């Protein structure tokens, strides 16, 4: 919170959260009560910071509903870093876009997303605009496209500041913009505020994006693959900057990534997603050293390790993720799982408690526990990948509804495909597949 102090009277962002008086002097068009704050009806400072309950997102396509997110529930506590990992198409980005209210209007979102007790789902854009950037802010994956190419970066930071504090003078705003750029490590910040995004390298642009995200001292920062587009040396720099941002703002963070290394270093808790659902939630040590869900174990086993010598054989997970159009009953990971038994196909397993604060969606967690994180114990190293040729694969489901549509039509599915040949004979999905309301 030190930047709050240094910025002095110019940015009364700390004061504004005390409500009334600061807002009352505002000449803005918002009703006095809410001006300058990010409060919506139902605000409760004692409530958990961010509470997502049974979030479901469906995209209608010509082949039926694509169930991109099928019951995500989690609670983000203050000061915590929650890592969400999963492969492309697992619904991790869609989840965060739903929280920010940035999904296209065609998306059908149900469930509940509460920020400090305030329900965000179903709010109109104007209400959400008060929360975005101030209560919850977001860092997007691609720094090349998340800045507006026709405005100077300084202006883009000032805009974020002034939209939440209408009586902030332009002079104070630009001073604060320089300060923010210094904070994220941009050399010669006072000169660089007048640059356009194309004058920056990828890493520098991502720093600007982080500066915008932290500009209003948000309570939650959602970082969606913040370092994926960057080189490894720049990634290390950006992770440091993110760390600074968290220290400065005291915010909690949801870090979405597919890089298990990044999560290992930053996150306190980890949520593993597969086919639109969390399949394991636990502390970072639980997930990495004692995973209980075969998928988490498989992910760790298919990762080449730079710190271990020798030429260990990787243990790939055979097959590919299921199509999210018509999910077969039972565990979505079943067709790829080496521990698959007939019971797995009966119903989608709920998240069951396997330890303190550690839950996994698997009926054979005892078997997985025996591996103690060694994937070779469960996954057959010499397993052939022949099955890869058998499954239609939904590509990059998470990115956009466009992609959803493409993915939903993977051509004629192979006759021997493990899941029902749904794509060829589209019929509407029979509602949400097994309700995940039993998540903790």
């Amino acid at each position, binding site marked *: 919170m030190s930047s709050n102090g240094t910025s002095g009277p110019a940015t009364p962002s700390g004061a504004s959260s005390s409500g009334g008086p600061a807002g009352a002097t505002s000449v803005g068009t918002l009703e006095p009560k809410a001006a300058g704050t990010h409060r919506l009806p139902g605000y409760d400072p004692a409530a958990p910071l961010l509470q997502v309950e049974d979030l479901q997102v469906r995209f209608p396509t010509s082949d039926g509903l694509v169930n991109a997110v099928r019951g995500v529930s989690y609670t983000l506590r203050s000061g915590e870093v929650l890592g969400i990992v999963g*492969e*492309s198409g697992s619904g991790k980005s869609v989840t965060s876009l739903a929280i920010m209210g940035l999904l296209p209007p065609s998306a059908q979102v149900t469930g509940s997303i509460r920020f400090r007790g305030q329900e965000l789902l179903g709010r109109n854009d104007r209400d959400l605009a008060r929360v975005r950037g101030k209560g919850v802010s977001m860092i997007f994956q691609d720094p090349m496209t998340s800045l507006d190419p026709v405005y100077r970066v300084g202006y883009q930071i000032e805009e974020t500041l002034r939209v939440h504090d209408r009586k902030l003078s332009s002079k104070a705003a630009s001073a604060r913009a320089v300060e923010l750029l210094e904070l994220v490590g941009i050399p010669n910040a006072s000169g660089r505020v007048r640059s356009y995004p194309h004058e920056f*390298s990828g*890493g*520098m642009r991502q720093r600007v994006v982080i500066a915008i995200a932290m500009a209003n001292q948000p309570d939650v920062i959602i970082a969606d693959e913040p370092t994926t587009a960057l*080189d*490894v*040396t*720049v*990634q*290390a*720099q950006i*992770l*440091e900057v993110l760390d600074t941002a968290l220290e400065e703002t005291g915010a909690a963070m949801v870090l979405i990534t*597919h890089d*298990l*290394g*990044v*999560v*290992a*270093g930053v996150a306190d808790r980890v949520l593993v997603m597969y086919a639109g659902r969390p399949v394991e939630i636990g502390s*970072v*040590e639980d997930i*990495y*050293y004692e995973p209980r869900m075969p998928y988490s174990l*498989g*992910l*760790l086993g*298919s*990762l*080449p*390790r*730079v*710190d*271990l*010598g*020798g*030429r*260990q*054989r*990787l*243990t*790939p*997970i*055979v097959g*590919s993720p299921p199509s999210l159009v018509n999910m077969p009953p039972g565990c979505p990971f079943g067709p790829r799982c080496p521990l698959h038994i007939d019971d797995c196909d009966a119903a989608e397993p709920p998240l069951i408690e396997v330890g303190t604060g550690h839950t996994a969606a698997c009926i054979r967690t005892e078997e997985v526990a025996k591996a103690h994180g060694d994937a*070779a114990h469960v996954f057959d190293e010499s397993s052939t*990948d*022949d099955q*890869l*040729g*058998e*499954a*239609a*694969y939904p*590509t990059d489901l998470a990115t956009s509804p466009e992609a959803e549509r493409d993915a939903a039509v*993977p*051509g*004629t599915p*192979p006759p021997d495909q493990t899941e029902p040949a749904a794509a060829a004979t589209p019929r509407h999905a029979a509602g949400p597949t097994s309700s995940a309301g039993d998540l903790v």
Partner: protein
Amino acid sequence: MSAPATERPAVRTGEPILTVRGLEKHFPIKGGGLIRRTVGAVRAVDGVDLDLYPGEVLGLVGESGCGKSTTGRAILNLQPATAGSVVFDGREIVGLNRKQMRPLRRDIQIVFQDPYASLNPRLPVFDIVAEPLIIHGLTKNNTELRTRVRELVEMVGLNPEHTNRYPSEFSGGQRQRIGIARALALQPKVLVLDEPVSALDVSIQAGVINLLEDLRDQLNLSYLFIAHDLSVVRHISDRVAVMYLGRIIEVADRDDLFERPAHPYTQALLSAIPLPDPRRERERQRIIITGDVPSPANPPSGCRFRTRCQKFANQLDDAQRQKCIDVEPQLEDRGAGHPNACHYAEVLQVL
């Protein structure tokens, strides 16, 4: 270290199958105005020396923009080199025209990074894999062609019944396998793999890496494995060359490079990789280098890495620094047991 089952002995025997000396690829920068004169050059590859031995996997790593992909393409003469020499099996490649290149293409093939862009979307998989066979006239009749394509498709772990489908009906991992099958159609001796797994998800990536390892053992291929992911490179390579701004700055046997890196850039690169192991990851001391890669159109004088070098910034005195500014360090052994290009190279364990 627990599974040394697939550990292979060092393969560097006999003559290199591919020798690259002083390879340069400069892209001209045209000025504005009516007469677009060349006003400079992007020195993408600026004097690269490499040796690839039969049956060896040579990893070529570096950050984006360091010229590793351009090196791969210049070796294949897909982008003609500006200067230098590439000798494959005793034959000079640089300067050959398309027609002269064609017989050589049977022996050197490439697998591209993006499986979505490198396959013709209008051709069914059968035609994609069969095309090189037809062009080179390697099969006598249709039956033989079919059998051969079937073999290839099976070899890369795809279902041969699916060859009448189009690339769009396959996933990223499967498409990459199609690209590999196409590259193997001519039974090449050397494969240039240009970031073959970086577009794939982790669980899919592991399958393709295993496939590449198996194929190398079965067919005794040599790979030039270009990648930015050092974990993958450590996994698959026998030797590793690190590139920075168009030059090789360190080359060593795999474990030597990862356990005893001597160049400050290699050290920073290794130390920046996040480990999927929370305890180790949190205990590590990171070397964080500042800034971005300088423009290859105007590389720094002397040592190219000095603008970002933590050693140059923190440890050296002014006289030593002057040497970095004035003298370009050559790639030679400075007591680390392998060649590196740093005047003040010092082995440092960072992993």
